């Protein structure tokens, strides 16, 4: 199985990876609801295998201003993970988390600048969402997964996504993206990108008994 390519893995096991994404995102939604203290609905996550060139368009254009949370994953599997969402959605979440302390309306929030406090709150949101996602993956596969402290980036979608794309680029020509739509008062789109190395893919699939 050592020479399995990304292409083969995803063709054969896309359903399994979809289900993993589904459960991970579901767990993350529950965590999000608990954190901001209100009901959060989630659409069925879309799992897509994209060409690098399609990536920007998928998340609303390469120049879309977004907030990315990026962290390393260690333990039985190695790699990294990114959670990315529109900056206005992020501001909305931060405002909820801080009980409206930003003091801006939902209309104004689109242009709200992120200061130190907002970044710190957003890191915490990212920490909890990605932690919940990885927890689901860990308990399903019985593999040890340790996330690092998250890093925060606020920039154009294309620039942020170049980081996971380059990581996928080491062994593939495509990127696996899990899109989840959360909604509370407004709808927000969030995207998970899990980037295990090839060996870890095999470990995950073996642990699930499908390989």
């Amino acid at each position: 199985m050592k020479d399995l390519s990304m292409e083969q893995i995803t063709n054969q096991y896309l359903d399994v990876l979809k289900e993993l994404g589904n459960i991970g995102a579901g767990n993350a939604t529950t965590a999000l609801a608990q954190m901001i203290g209100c009901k959060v609905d989630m659409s069925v996550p879309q799992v897509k295998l994209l060409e690098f060139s399609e990536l920007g368009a998928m998340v609303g254009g390469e120049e879309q201003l977004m907030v990315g949370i990026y962290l390393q994953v260690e333990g039985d599997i190695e790699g990294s993970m990114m959670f990315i969402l529109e900056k206005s959605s992020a501001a909305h979440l931060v405002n909820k988390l801080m009980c409206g302390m930003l003091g801006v309306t939902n209309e104004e929030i689109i242009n709200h600048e992120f200061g130190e406090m907002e970044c710190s709150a957003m890191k915490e949101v990212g920490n909890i969402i990605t932690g919940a996602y990885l927890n689901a993956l860990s308990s399903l596969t019985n593999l040890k997964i340790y996330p690092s402290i998250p890093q925060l980036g606020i920039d154009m979608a294309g620039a942020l996504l170049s980081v996971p794309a380059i990581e996928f680029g080491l062994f593939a020509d495509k990127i696996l993206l899990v899109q989840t739509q959360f909604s509370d008062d407004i709808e927000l789109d969030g995207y998970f990108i899990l980037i295990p190395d090839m060996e870890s893919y095999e470990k995950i699939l073996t642990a699930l008994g499908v390989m």
Partner: protein
Amino acid sequence: MNEVIKVGMAALAVCNADDAITTLGLGSCIGIAIRDPATGIGGLVHIMLPDSTEIRNNENRLKFADTGIEDLVKEVVKKGANRSRLVAKIAGGAQMFAFGGKSDLIRVGERNALASKKKLNELKIPILAEDTGETYGRTVIFYPKTGDYVIRSVGMPEKVI
């Protein structure tokens, strides 16, 4: 001007003097723009990784600085540019997060920039200007007629190199 051609990750485009080429939201990737000043024919390649020889999965030539630049030169010459007159400008190679993933991806932006310059030097294509490194993304537009390479970043004034 007639048209602005959009180039995605691991892709290239060439054009005549009347057109322009853009690539949106460059992060750690590099946009290498070359042109023949006499004819105004130029091209741009959007590379992701420094070196095709370091990686087993290297069939996608445009993903790498070394093979990507080779192909870009080939394409602009095919379009009618004079090989000996070619000049280059490069932008991108930012470090978007404080750590860069696995050990071979640490400072990948910086390594992309170095690899691009090395390849251009090998091919004896002079680098007239560069805007690389830092920690922010860049949208670039290349006008091969004038050689202007316009760079836009979030929250910063537009610049032309």
